[in-house]
């Protein structure tokens, strides 16, 4: 215990005095070291003065709006430990931004000392040095640190479809604060669950998601499909699903709006030529995302056939890595669970994911009259780095146009 003085810090090279514009504490308040205690105005800066000690404020010597010289006592503080007056801590608090730095210890005081090599590499590769961890002495960023960032970055782009790298393993960190009771079951996170977790964390932390939903009247589609499905099943042996029609419409729209059929690659956007749709297929507790390739070149029947084959493979566990590779856009059939609205997480590194919701019969006003119509919501999640609202909106309304005008003439099954 001891009574210590907190003095007016030197708030700039030529500053000799400061005006206390606002006390942030009262006598009796407990403050920690570095907590702001007052706002101070000088002719150069407005700054918060941090406490040099941890303890209880005893007395405010200087009053608000009072101008006092650098080094004069501002207030008295009863400290908890016998900390020695540390001049350097006080004088460090120069401006508001520097106050934050003064929280850091000497361990990091080389963090912003950049060597010529580091600066050059950072500029050439557009690296934000404030985000690079320095492994040199006192936190200095070394040339090797930068070279590693550059190497990691190019690895990321190359290995983008399987983004299980150690940098992004945040999902793997165990949470100590989750507490288990008797009877709770602990399931180790392995295999597919782990891959999904890593993918999702990476996608949500890296991609700035934006969302959009449109409502589509698919009464024509429902009628058309109902008229054809029995005959189709009889001749082909598998179901004529709605999903095939949706994929067909989306592939057509992607052809028109290739911006959505793309990937973010750091310093460039890769627009894919092929339209390969990843489709989510659930089996038991597992989720697979196999790919139907070149959907734009396939008939409704062709798409329905591939959906059927891939679901069968998923069910008997014979999906291969090859089946899952090369997707450029993902379509998720959330409607199969009865969902009417959802916000999909983008399948990294694609630029967007579209959720096809449940088709629901609802009263709709057409020409000022109620009508019973088959309605469906289509929900789009987009990577806002790659796409903006305008292009996404045009894409969605194009899909809407295709779906609402489906008939035997516009969309033959074979």
């Amino acid at each position, binding site marked *: 215990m001891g009574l210590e003085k907190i003095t007016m810090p030197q708030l700039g090279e030529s500053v000799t005095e400061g005006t206390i514009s606002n006390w942030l504490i009262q006598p009796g308040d407990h403050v920690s070291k570095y907590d702001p205690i007052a706002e101070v105005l000088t002719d150069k800066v407005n700054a918060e003065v941090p406490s040099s000690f941890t303890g209880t404020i005893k007395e405010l010597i200087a009053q608000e709006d009072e101008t006092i010289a650098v080094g004069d006592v501002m207030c008295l503080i009863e400290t908890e430990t016998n900390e020695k007056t540390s001049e350097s801590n006080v004088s460090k608090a120069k401006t508001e931004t520097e106050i934050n730095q003064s929280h850091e210890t000497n361990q990091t005081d080389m963090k912003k000392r950049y*060597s*010529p*090599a*580091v600066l*050059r590499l950072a500029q050439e590769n557009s690296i934000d040095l404030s985000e690079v961890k320095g492994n040199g*002495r006192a936190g*200095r960023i*070394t*040339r*090797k640190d930068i070279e590693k960032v550059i190497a990691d970055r190019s690895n990321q782009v190359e290995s983008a479809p399987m983004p299980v790298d150690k940098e992004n393993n945040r999902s793997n960190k165990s949470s100590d604060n989750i507490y288990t009771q008797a009877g709770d079951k602990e399931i180790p996170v392995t295999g597919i669950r782990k891959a999904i977790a890593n993918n999702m964390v990476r996608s949500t932390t890296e991609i700035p998601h934006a969302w959009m939903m449109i409502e589509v009247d698919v009464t024509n589609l429902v009628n058309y499909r109902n008229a054809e499905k029995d005959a189709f099943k009889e001749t082909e042996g598998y179901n004529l699903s709605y999903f095939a029609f949706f994929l067909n419409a989306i592939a057509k729209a992607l052809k028109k709006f290739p911006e959505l059929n793309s990937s973010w690659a750091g310093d460039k956007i890769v627009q894919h030529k092929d339209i390969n749709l990843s489709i989510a297929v659930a089996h038991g507790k597992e989720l697979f995302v196999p790919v139907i390739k070149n959907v734009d070149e396939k008939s409704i029947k062709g798409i329905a056939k591939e959906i059927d084959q891939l679901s069968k493979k998923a069910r008997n566990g014979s999906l291969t890595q090859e089946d899952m590779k090369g997707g450029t856009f993902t379509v998720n059939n959330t409607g199969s669970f009865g969902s009417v609205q959802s916000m999909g997480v983008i399948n990294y590194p694609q630029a967007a994911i579209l959720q096809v919701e449940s088709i629901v019969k609802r009263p709709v006003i057409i020409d000022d009259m109620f009508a019973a119509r088959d309605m469906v919501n289509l929900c789009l999640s987009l990577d806002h780095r790659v796409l903006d609202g305008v292009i996404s909106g045009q894409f969605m309304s194009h899909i809407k146009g295709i779906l609402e005008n489906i008939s035997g003439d516009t969309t033959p099954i074979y």
Partner: protein
Amino acid sequence: MQKMQPMPAQNQFMTSYMETKGGEMMPVLSYIQAVTKALQEEMERDEKVFVLGEDVGVRGGVFRATDGLYQQFGESRVIDTPLAESAIAGVGIGAAMYGMRPVAEMQFADFILPAVNQIISEAAKMRYRSNNDWTCPITIRAPYGGGVHGALYHSQSIEAIFANQPGLKIVMPSSPYDVKGLLKAAIRDNDPVLFLEHKRAYRSIKEEVPDTDYTLPIGKADVKREGSDITVITYGLCVQWAIKAAENLAAEGIDVHILDLRTIYPLDQEAIKQAASKTGKVLLITEDNKEGSIIGEVAAIISEHCLFDLDAPIKRLAGPDVPSMPYAPPLEKEFMINQDKIEAAMRDLAEF
């Protein structure tokens, strides 16, 4: 100085052999044996080559560098001279100008100073001042360096005195293999070469040296070890310590790149730039006094050309700026570069 049993020349290289990968036997030579071997081979190859110096003849040199040459080639080609370094250099320079290939020995590099005028004013400038009419293909050998309790007159590094004389080349080999290849190249060079041998390396450094007739290029540095964390540029005996220190640090995960300058004047600028740019962290080592030493010039080349590859200040590890090597053993140890000092400097730079 050190005493050795006289040994017949023909038996000198039979003492130890090691088997190479190919199954061939390759002799292991000490640094000084490589000097003798190079002299012997060149004298056999070219009868214009002759040796002159103090006690180089019957005695075979105070370090035994010319051991057996007198017996093999006779007194007309292995000439004992008076104690007059200016004469040794001057006679050699004159002979060289008349088409001979003299190899002049200074007993200790410390004693070369009376010959400086001959070497700098005559030998180094001969080709230039005669507009290519005259050349001076002399090789001047001299043992330099400390760590042998030689004190003031037997320990100095004198290379910096000669290192801004265009027309003169200065070669300072670090290993027996390099000694043989570089000394043969020096003798065959058509201009004067100052060939400085570290006397402590004479019997402490041994390695396999091929029996074959090979030369190494003068003016080219040599990468002695590939590494990615820090670059060490040095020459002479310091190279050996640096290699050992690097091996120790490899166990700590510090990967050291070592460039042996081999020729310290003129410097191999391309190799220096390449080595410095490779890691961006450069440690320069010399046994010479720090201020005004060769490595200062190396540092200048690096800062002139490699600024944007540098990741740390260029570091120099060198002898202190005191007038000469002390005689007292603790002080001599303090003056000398050694493996521990190099290791500490390497670690410090790697951590920067």
